[in-house]
């Protein structure tokens, strides 16, 4: 079955699927694939087409305040496949500590442990085409090079794996829209509609049920969808926007009776050139600097804090990686010569590298999305993001770097220089991961979260949310693998809901 173009749907049409999935990104596509062999009649609504279109992308524009962030219409993509059309393929499962409620980290903790996601990681790994699920077990096998020796302590050699569209000469990460288009077309109980923009969730009279969805096209089409159940899967920003903008009955928006929707926005901060890593013995193994292949996996090493160290020192997650080779200044050369000689090590062939990192942010209710008066071409209110990052977030990462430096000295393998100290310095070299999380956070208490442990919106019997917007705490691992595992779990739950 070919995809339907919503611009061809007559105005006033009422569609009545069992389940409507709003959004054709990795979460929406995963859900549709997972429900393929069930009797559930699924309608997947994608706002964009098969390729980028500037008029559609413009619907994402918004305002920003606070710490400089990526413009809201540049940090995501509104066409089939969503953000998988520009992801880098970096993958790593969240760690058990990321799910734990930690007294020293306000608002932390998921309503379940990582064990709940374990059964879904293998399938999620298949969907992102990242080879066998190896990650940290890579350290136990043959690698094309030596691991950086570290003394005992809080940092260890850990690994990313990478999504890789097998057979593609460019080894691009899996772009879900193009990669799974044919598979989706072959699902008999699925209708997939392009150019279908959901502009509102309309509540039933008892406000405990979403009665229907308003859908609009940029060509002026208007129709409605009256499903039994709904899954919002349009990304960590747009999920919140749709809930907030559906405010015709409840002024705060759907699911926002406790003022939680849009709060706790998060991304991974990616400060560059955060430290200089010197390896006394010469060139570091290639898999620290770039992706390499081993045991069927496309992988790269990171110098990660152990869970034990994070607990003891009360630290957020961070995943430092080698960026590029750098030259040392006069002080640097003196530091290396003096320290290596004192340690009794020859550093005449030492190599120096800059370190960047993916950095977890502490949950912050004031880092949030709110509606503004400006409206887009479909009449939807636009968003404003208030972006924050605390000095504590930087200090946490700095503590990890100091420990790494100590372990290098202990192993007599190298040393480390901290290259960022002040807030201004940190912010001057800041990138972001485009990993939108947290805005419909998961919590069993409706006053502290938007969805429950099954990703069902509190107080609404037929509305669910998929994707990283439900992450209540974020970890440092890239979200795609994890949100797909979480979506597969949701698919299992929905099978039970539909009986």
């Amino acid at each position, binding site marked *: 079955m070919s995809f339907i173009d919503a611009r061809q749907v007559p105005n006033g049409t009422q569609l009545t699927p069992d389940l409507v999935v709003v959004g054709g990104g990795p979460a929406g596509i995963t859900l549709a694939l997972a429900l393929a062999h069930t009797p559930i009649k699924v309608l997947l609504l994608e706002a964009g087409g098969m390729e980028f279109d500037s008029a559609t992308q413009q619907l994402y524009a918004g305002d920003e305040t606070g710490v400089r962030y990526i413009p809201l219409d540049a940090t995501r993509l509104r066409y089939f496949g969503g953000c998988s059309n520009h992801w880098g393929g970096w993958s790593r499962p969240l760690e058990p500590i990321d799910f734990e409620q930690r007294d020293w980290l306000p608002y932390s903790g998921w309503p379940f442990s990582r064990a709940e996601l374990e059964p879904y990681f293998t399938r999620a790994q298949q969907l992102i085409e990242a080879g066998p699920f190896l990650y940290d077990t890579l350290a136990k096998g043959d690698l094309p090079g030596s691991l950086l020796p570290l*003394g*005992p302590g809080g940092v260890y050699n850990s690994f990313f794996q990478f999504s890789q569209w097998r057979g593609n000469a460019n080894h691009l990460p899996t772009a879900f829209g193009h990669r799974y288009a044919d598979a989706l077309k072959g699902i008999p109980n699925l209708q997939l509609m392009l150019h279908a923009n959901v502009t509102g969730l309309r509540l039933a009279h008892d406000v405990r049920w979403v009665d229907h969805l308003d859908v609009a096209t940029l060509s002026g089409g208007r129709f409605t969808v009256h499903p039994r159940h709904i899954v919002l899967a349009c990304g960590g920003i747009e999920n919140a926007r749709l809930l907030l903008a559906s405010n015709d009955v409840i002024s705060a928006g759907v699911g926002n009776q406790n003022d939680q929707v849009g709060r706790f926005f998060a991304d991974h901060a990616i400060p560059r050139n955060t430290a*200089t890593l010197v390896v006394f013995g010469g060139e570091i193994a290639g898999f620290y600097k770039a992706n390499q292949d081993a045991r069927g996996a496309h992988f790269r090493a990171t110098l990660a804090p152990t869970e034990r160290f994070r607990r003891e020192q009360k630290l957020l997650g961070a995943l430092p990686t080698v960026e590029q080779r750098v030259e040392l200044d*006069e*002080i*640097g*050369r*003196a*530091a290396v*010569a*003096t*320290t290596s*000689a*004192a*340690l*009794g*090590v020859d550093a005449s062939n030492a190599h120096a590298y800059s370190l960047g990192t993916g950095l977890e942010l502490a949950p912050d209710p004031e880092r949030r999305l709110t509606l503004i008066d400006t409206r887009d071409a479909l009449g939807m209110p636009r968003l404003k993001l208030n972006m924050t990052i605390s000095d504590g977030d930087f200090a946490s990462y700095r503590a990890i*770097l*100091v420990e790494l*430096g*100590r372990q*290098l*000295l*202990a192993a*007599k393998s190298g*040393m*480390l*220089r*901290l*290259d960022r*100290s002040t807030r201004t310095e940190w912010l001057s070299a800041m990138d972001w991961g485009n990993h939108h999380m947290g805005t419909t956070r998961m919590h069993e208490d409706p006053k502290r979260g938007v969805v429950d442990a099954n990703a069902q919106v509190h107080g609404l019997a037929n509305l669910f949310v998929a994707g990283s917007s439900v992450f209540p705490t974020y970890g440092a691992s890239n979200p795609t693998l994890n949100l797909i595992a979480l979506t597969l779990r949701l698919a299992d739950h929905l099978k039970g809901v539909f009986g």
Partner: protein
Amino acid sequence: MSVSRRTIMAAGGTLVAAVAGGIVYEGWRLLRDRYPPTPYDDLLDRLNSREDARRIGLVFLGRHRNFTPATAARALRQRIGAHELSAALANEVALGGITEAAGWIIPESVAGLCALAASV
């Protein structure tokens, strides 16, 4: 007991070589250690290069204004003692004895030696 001419020649050669070696070593040491004597030479002699150490030490002293050479030297002697410097540092680093100088994470004793080098 008779001593052969060959033995005498060999012994003499060895003596000449030893004396020459000593002269070369002392000459090299005099060239290297072109510093006036200090009360901390037993410590500073453990450094590979006083000039390199001095560069780091100056930065370190900029953030440790209350550094006093005599106190630091006493602590360093206690910490390092008669051990090889590398062995003492290994123990120190394992116990968390690190500090920061110009952003570099270095063993506290290395920082102390560098600060001494910059103080004299």
